[in-house]
């Protein structure tokens, strides 16, 4: 190669080649030697001197070559960049030439990628991210196992034995969250807090910003009560004042504030105050299950070993006591703390993630078929370029660049959509979603989005690109843009359309099941009327109301005040309100016999509560002024309680005792109450759970049960119950200005209790509608394209006298031919996949025929529409026009 040749044909700056280096250095040495010879040196000595003056020739050559190599590399990089920019420019031009397609593709991709990004940000925040605690993988949640195999809270003596006997833990701490009235701050308020065991701060290492954490001495029974508060509580409620002056009244006890910890410290999330549990422990019974226990595994200890050890200790210690074996633990369960926090959300969230991926796959399939159709139309252009010498790889790269550009732009749009979704989720703060603060478009999520976009581009771009570049250049040029699209590549079309249909069908069946299940749930009779009822939780300070009778007198007074408010239809008292935080239950005794035991719900109430909630009185009567504290003890039972324990008998006149539920409060002797009435069953625990056999006692006769939890239920005589709120507020303030006022509507509680199912249904429904639309558009596109390619054939048929109906029928039949296969595959896939949804469905089988048939019909109708439109258009064209167009 001569130096001259090297210059031609390159638009890039010339730069040194490695072989030039040696030649140049050799020349230098020769010229230098010549110069020396001219000065009179002997030739051999001159060459020697020239070398000496030059220095280490090999070293110089090496240095030069290194520079040349890096120069070449830089130039190559520049060339690649230039090529990429060229490809991008070409792709942008191509897309701008058909803005309709570009827009459709972008919207499709933005929706598909956006859906995935949004769902993944929730999955990542709630399920995948480690809990915000040091070494959070070592934190575990321990519960006892009852004799029915379910889990229950922990009895204090068992907890103490675990602490004393286990070796698997760096720490074990009781943690009971509570909501309590706190007095002594700037205003009376309800604060979320936790009663915590001695090891608590060892489990959740925290550096106090003020003062100290609680230490062993604070955790002794009889120690002066102290509390640690969160930073925002300290600033907002205590004005950030020095701690030694701060005393609060919590749960009726005067406590000293000893420390301030950063917000977000500790468990449960959102706690504002922490106070030692040990002085609060009320029971040394192994059947009083009142505590939650969190542990931290010792270094190197496996979860399995810890689980086995705790289970073993529990079995051992519960063999000893002389207590009712029905209520003793039969073992213990140890699970990662994150499982407790995330609860049952894993399955629904993964279901949504799967659904989002299916939507994206539908979008990909849709775009692949559109690109292929467009590409086939462009095959002439591609063939021309190929015949002009463009390599297949180069053309493939062009087509892929186009796909990548679309995917990246679509991904950017998707991130925008996902941002809006995340914002609205965080703003609406659905009650069923824990760790909401961690749901965000974090770098991990954005990385996921970027990979999804690239994956998408490859998926929808590569198949058409490979397919199109396989066309023999000569063949495409000869046949021009004619030809029958439905034969040569019909298998590809069938595959693409079929895939789209099958995926959409699976989604439709899934969301159909959820809709059916949700309707079944809403049709359940709750047993009470929620629409016109306000619930008012009332919390009294036990410091100000030390005796149970003080509480009773307060509520007697409050009920009278509220009843006199104009517009109030009925008002009553309930110890625990339906659908709000569970139903107390436990051992009861029947028929005046302490050995005749039953398990049931236990609710204290006033007679007005049944009226306010429209719970029907089926027999006898409910409580009234005849049932005062000194009158005969009475009770009301639910229908299912009467049926279960006195089948075929008249429940009215029987007797029932509070049993284990009352013993805890050490009441006077036996307290058998005469049953005076039977009321209708209500779904107290959850809309989706069967009514639980329940006994109601009048609050007047069991005032010790209302010291911690009490609610007024107020029914509006007419109109919106929210209109009563100001008057209710005034009534409470008049009765005691220190009582914090909170009101919520029972209808809202009903909505909240089905919130998770509603959310799942709507998101899944949204995804399946999206998939249905995409599939319809996809089918429409493919059929339009094939009709467009067959205008000549159709024109001839019409010219030869074929009826338009028969031509339309031909087009639609060909289209449905592609759809039917997809439907069949989709039905099989749906039957296989929806089985995973069993636990998410209420009263509906995963193979529910209505959902299945409904989905098939909806999709078939959409497919018919999508093929009928182009079919109709095809027969509207003047045959002469189409034939002349050739």
């Amino acid at each position, binding site marked *: 190669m001569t*130096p001259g040749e090297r210059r031609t044909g390159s638009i890039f700056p*010339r730069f*040194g080649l490695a072989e030039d280096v040696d030649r*140049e250095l050799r*020349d230098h040495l020769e010229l230098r030697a010549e110069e020396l010879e001219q000065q009179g040196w002997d030739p051999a000595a001159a060459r020697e001197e020239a070398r000496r*003056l*030059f220095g280490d020739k090999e070293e*110089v050559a090496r*240095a*030069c070559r290194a520079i040349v190599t890096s120069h070449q590399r830089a130039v190559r990089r520049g060339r690649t960049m230039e090529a990429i920019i060229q490809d991008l420019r070409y792709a942008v031009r191509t897309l701008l030439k058909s803005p309709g397609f570009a827009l459709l593709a972008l919207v499709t991709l933005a929706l598909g990628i956006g859906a995935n990004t949004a769902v993944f940000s929730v999955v990542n925040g709630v399920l995948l991210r480690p809990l915000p605690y040091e070494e959070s993988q070592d934190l575990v949640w321990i519960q006892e196992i009852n004799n029915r195999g379910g889990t229950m809270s922990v009895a204090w003596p068992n907890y103490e034995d675990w602490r004393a006997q286990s070796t698997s833990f760096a720490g074990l701490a009781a943690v009971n969250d509570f909501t309590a009235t706190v007095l002594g701050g700037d205003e009376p308020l309800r604060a979320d807090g936790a009663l915590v065991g001695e090891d608590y701060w060892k489990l959740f290492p925290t550096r106090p910003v003020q003062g100290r954490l609680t230490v062993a001495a604070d955790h002794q029974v009889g120690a002066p009560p102290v509390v640690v508060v969160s930073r925002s509580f300290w600033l907002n409620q205590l004005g950030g004042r020095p701690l030694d002056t701060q005393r609060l009244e919590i749960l009726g006890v005067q406590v000293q504030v000893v420390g301030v910890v950063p917000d977000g410290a500790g468990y449960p999330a959102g706690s504002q105050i922490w106070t030692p549990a040990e002085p609060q422990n009320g029971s040394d019974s192994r059947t009083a299950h009142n505590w939650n226990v969190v542990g931290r595994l010792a270094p190197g200890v496996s979860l399995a070993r810890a689980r086995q050890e705790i289970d073993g200790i529990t079995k051992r210690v519960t063999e000893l006591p002389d207590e009712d074996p029905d209520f003793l633990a039969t073992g213990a369960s140890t699970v990662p703390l994150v499982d407790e926090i995330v609860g049952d959300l894993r399955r629904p969230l993964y279901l949504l993630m799967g659904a989002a991926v299916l939507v994206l796959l539908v979008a990909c399939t849709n775009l692949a078929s559109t690109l292929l159709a467009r590409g086939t139309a462009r095959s002439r252009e591609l063939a021309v370029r190929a015949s002009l010498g463009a390599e297949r790889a180069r053309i493939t790269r062009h087509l892929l660049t186009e796909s990548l550009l679309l995917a990246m732009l679509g991904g950017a749009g998707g991130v925008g959509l996902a941002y809006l979704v995340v914002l609205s989720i965080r703003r609406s703060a659905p009650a069923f979603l824990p760790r909401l603060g961690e749901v965000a478009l974090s770098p991990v999520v954005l990385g996921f989005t970027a990979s999804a976009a690239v994956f998408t581009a490859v998926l929808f771009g590569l198949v058409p690109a490979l397919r199109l570049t396989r066309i023999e250049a000569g063949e495409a040029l000869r046949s021009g843009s004619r030809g029958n699209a439905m034969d040569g590549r019909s298998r590809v079309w069938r595959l693409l359309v079929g895939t789209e249909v099958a995926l959409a069908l699976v989604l439709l069946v899934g969301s159909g099941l959820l809709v059916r299940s949700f309707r079944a749930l809403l049709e359940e009779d709750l047993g009470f009327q929620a629409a016109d009822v306000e619930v008012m939780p009332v919390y009294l300070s036990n410091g100000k109301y030390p005796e149970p009778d003080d509480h009773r007198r307060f509520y007697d007074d409050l009920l009278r005040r509220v009843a006199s408010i104009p517009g109030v239809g009925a008002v009553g008292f309930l110890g625990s309100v339906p659908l709000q935080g569970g139903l107390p239950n436990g051992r009861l005794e029947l028929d005046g016999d302490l050995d005749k035991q039953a398990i049931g719900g236990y609710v204290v109430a006033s007679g007005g509560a049944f009226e306010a909630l429209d719970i029907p009185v089926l027999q006898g009567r409910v409580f009234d002024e005849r049932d005062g504290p000194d009158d005969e003890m009475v009770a009301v039972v639910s229908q299912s309680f009467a049926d279960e324990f006195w089948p075929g008998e008249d429940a009215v006149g029987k007797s029932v005792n509070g049993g284990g539920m009352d013993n805890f409060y050490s009441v006077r002797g036996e307290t058998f109450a005469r049953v005076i009435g039977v009321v209708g069953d209500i779904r107290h625990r959850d809309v989706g759970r069967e009514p639980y056999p329940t006994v109601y006692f009048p609050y007047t006769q069991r005032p010790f049960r209302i010291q911690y939890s009490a609610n007024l239920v107020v029914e509006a005589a007419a109109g919106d119950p929210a209109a009563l709120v100001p008057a209710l507020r005034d009534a409470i303030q008049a009765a005691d200005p220190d009582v914090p006022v909170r009101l919520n509507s029972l209808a809202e509680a009903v909505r909240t209790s089905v919130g998770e199912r509603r959310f799942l249904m709507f998101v899944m429904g949204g995804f399946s509608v999206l998939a249905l639309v995409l599939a319809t558009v996809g089918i429409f596109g493919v059929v339009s394209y094939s009709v467009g390619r067959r205008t000549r054939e159709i024109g001839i048929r019409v010219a030869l006298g074929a009826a338009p109906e028969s031509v339309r029928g031909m087009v639609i039949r060909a289209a449905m031919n592609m759809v039917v296969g997809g439907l069949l595959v989709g039905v099989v896939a749906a039957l296989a996949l929806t089985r995973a949804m069993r636990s998410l469905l209420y009263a509906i089988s995963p193979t529910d025929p209505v959902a299945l048939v409904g989905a098939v019909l909806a999709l078939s109708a959409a497919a018919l529409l999508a093929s009928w439109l182009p079919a109709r258009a095809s027969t509207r064209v003047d045959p002469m026009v189409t034939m002349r167009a050739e």
Partner: protein
Amino acid sequence: MAEPSLELLKGTLDVLILKTLSQGAMHGYGISRSIRETTREAFRVEEGALYPALRRLEKRGLVEAEWSVTDTGREARVYDLTPAGTAELSAELRSWHRYVEAMGRVLGAASGS
């Protein structure tokens, strides 16, 4: 000649090359000889050091090179300044003059008193 040679300051070679090329395109050996003659061999530098310096300048886009036939009929790799090289040279010259002037003021004042 009798004076001992000076160590070449770092980066100085680049300026010398650029300055030399500002008189016209030249091949490597020519540049070497020209520097030797104009500095009257004041600097002690191995002649080979010129070539990596040239390649570096080429990579930075300050000089460009092509193989061509010289006046003596030899084929040689001939270097020339690019516009960027010309600009770089005048910038370097300005800072050299400032440097020399400042040093001269200090040293001149010291020896003058």
